[in-house]
């Protein structure tokens, strides 16, 4: 709860700091606030008490939600840091940009800790609305505007569908609280059609929000059109928050209706994997490739929801954290290379232009592909190993897909390690960007090694 307040407050401070016309002030207040938030979460994880006591039981920071929040704040920190070079170019709006991203992070933190539908729904909206705006923050770019409109229409449609589902759940169980819903489902006759309608609508909205097939069609366009940082934010922070929230809904509230939604989700997972992978093969633009690869990763993550083992909260956290670091590294590279058309080909000769970026890029791609010793591999392993006992067919399908995906990851990999035909100027990185890239590298390599200490 401390972190929530700190992050929101630092968002407000950033908004007002912008009046001073000193971008560095805005940045330092935002990053300072996030750091403070991270510190307070770590303090709580290690056994400290929250300073703010809640009288309301709709928000509860368990150990799991603290971990998810930690990741969210770290990612917000990295992304704002990377995006600074871009934000700086329009000093007029820098306060709004950074403020909105912080508000969005606030929503994401709420999404990790809710225990009733009120906070869930509000968190979801606080998470989404700033991102609708940020997707269009490149105001004079028609593509960015278009991305914003598409994301907004899809997002608010999904919100409508979600609420319809929530209303049915309320009708079936008479409660908005996760624990009471679970209790009611446990006691009721298993063939309750109202409940099923509710779950179905919530499931559909969930698939919309995370961009799983067949509701994925908006995501490549939006990822493509939005500014780099916002794409990174959508792929990392938004996804983690959405997955943590829906994991809670499906594993706690609807756990007893397991037999109903697992088959549906299994089919959709297979579809998502194949759609994401087969479309990714043809892509030539970095952000579009990232979009399709993120669809594929959503597919793997759905497996966590399906398998529903004891450790799924941890598996999901680990997977999404590892994935987020790789995405942020690639986004940082995209911003630094600064290619007009965002072509994958533009990554050629990166090793000459800036070895650090090339190393980060190589590790990020390997991690996305799930090659060992990266966080991506261990994440994939955890997910697949937990699903093996009950759903070995799905695991094999997931593995087949990860074999397909190697093809397009290898393309990016090849681009990064090969020499460019034309001489290109070396890329100079600011101290902040260098620091952030080093952090992502540590995250991608080091994440598996901290597990024993958790």
């Amino acid at each position, binding site marked *: 709860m401390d972190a929530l307040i700190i992050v929101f407050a630092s968002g407000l401070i950033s908004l007002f700091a912008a009046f001073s016309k000193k971008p560095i002030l805005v940045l330092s207040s935002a990053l300072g606030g996030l750091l403070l938030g991270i510190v307070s979460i770590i303090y709580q994880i290690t056994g400290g008490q929250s300073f703010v006591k809640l009288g309301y039981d709709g928000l509860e920071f368990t150990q799991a939600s603290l971990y998810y929040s930690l990741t969210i704040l770290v990612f917000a920190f990295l992304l704002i840091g990377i995006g600074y070079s871009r934000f700086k170019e329009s000093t007029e709006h820098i306060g709004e940009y950074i403020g909105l991203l912080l508000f969005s992070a606030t929503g994401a933190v709420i999404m990790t800790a809710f225990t009733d539908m009120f906070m869930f729904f509000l968190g979801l909206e606080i998470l989404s609305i700033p991102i609708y705006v940020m997707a269009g923050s490149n105001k004079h770019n028609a593509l960015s505007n278009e991305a914003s409109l598409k994301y907004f229409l899809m997002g608010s449609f999904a*919100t409508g569908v979600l609420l319809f589902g929530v209303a049915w759940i309320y009708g079936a169980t008479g409660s908005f609280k996760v624990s009471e819903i679970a209790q009611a489902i446990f006691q009721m006759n298993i063939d309750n059609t109202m409940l099923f309608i509710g779950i179905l609508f919530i499931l559909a909205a969930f698939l919309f929000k995370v961009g799983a097939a067949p509701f994925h069609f908006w995501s490549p366009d939006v990822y493509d059109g939005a500014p780099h940082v916002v794409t990174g934010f959508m792929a990392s922070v938004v996804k983690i928050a959405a997955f943590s929230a829906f994991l809670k809904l499906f594993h706690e509230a609807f756990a007893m209706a397991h037999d109903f939604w697992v088959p549906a989700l299994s089919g959709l997972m297979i579809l998502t994997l194949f759609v994401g992978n087969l479309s990714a093969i043809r892509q030539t633009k970095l952000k579009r490739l990232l979009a399709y690869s993120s669809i594929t990763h959503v597919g793997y993550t759905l497996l966590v929801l399906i398998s529903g083992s004891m450790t799924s909260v941890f598996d999901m956290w680990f997977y999404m954290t590892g994935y987020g670091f790789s995405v942020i590294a690639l986004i940082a590279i995209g911003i630094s290379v600064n290619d007009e058309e965002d072509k994958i080909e533009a990554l050629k000769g990166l090793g000459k232009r800036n070895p650090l970026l090339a190393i980060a890029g190589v590790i990020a791609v390997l991690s996305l592909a799930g090659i060992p010793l990266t966080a991506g591999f261990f994440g994939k392993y955890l997910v697949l190993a937990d699903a093996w006992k009950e759903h070995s067919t799905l695991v094999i399908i997931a593995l087949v897909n990860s074999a397909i995906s190697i093809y397009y990851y290898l393309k990016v990999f090849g681009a990064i390690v090969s020499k460019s035909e034309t001489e290109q100027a070396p890329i100079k990185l600011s101290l902040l960007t260098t620091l952030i890239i080093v952090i992502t590298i540590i995250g991608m390599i080091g994440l598996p090694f901290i597990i024993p200490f958790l």
Partner: protein
Amino acid sequence: MLLATLFESGISIKHYMLLATVLFAIGVFGVLYRKNAIILLMCIELMLNAVNLLLVAFSTYFGKADGQLFVFFIMVVAAAEATVGLSILVLLYRNARTTDIRLFNKLKN
């Protein structure tokens, strides 16, 4: 309290469930059918209202107020969404002189 006995008369909760579902379906239909972004936004508002109606009906039926409170929050969100949505539309209109979503397909290629 003339109307408090609604659910003890011939009208059951199911009637309201039906009404809300029909309204929701009309909203969904509108989102799929119309091409003008403003009207799409209105159809989404219609969907939200169908949800509100359903929640209020359940709330009255259960005799619990939390359903109606949820409706307030939905209204809050609807207002926020409308604001943001309309400003996105204004922005788009300024750049493209139209709000027809069929013309926004530059990203597809």
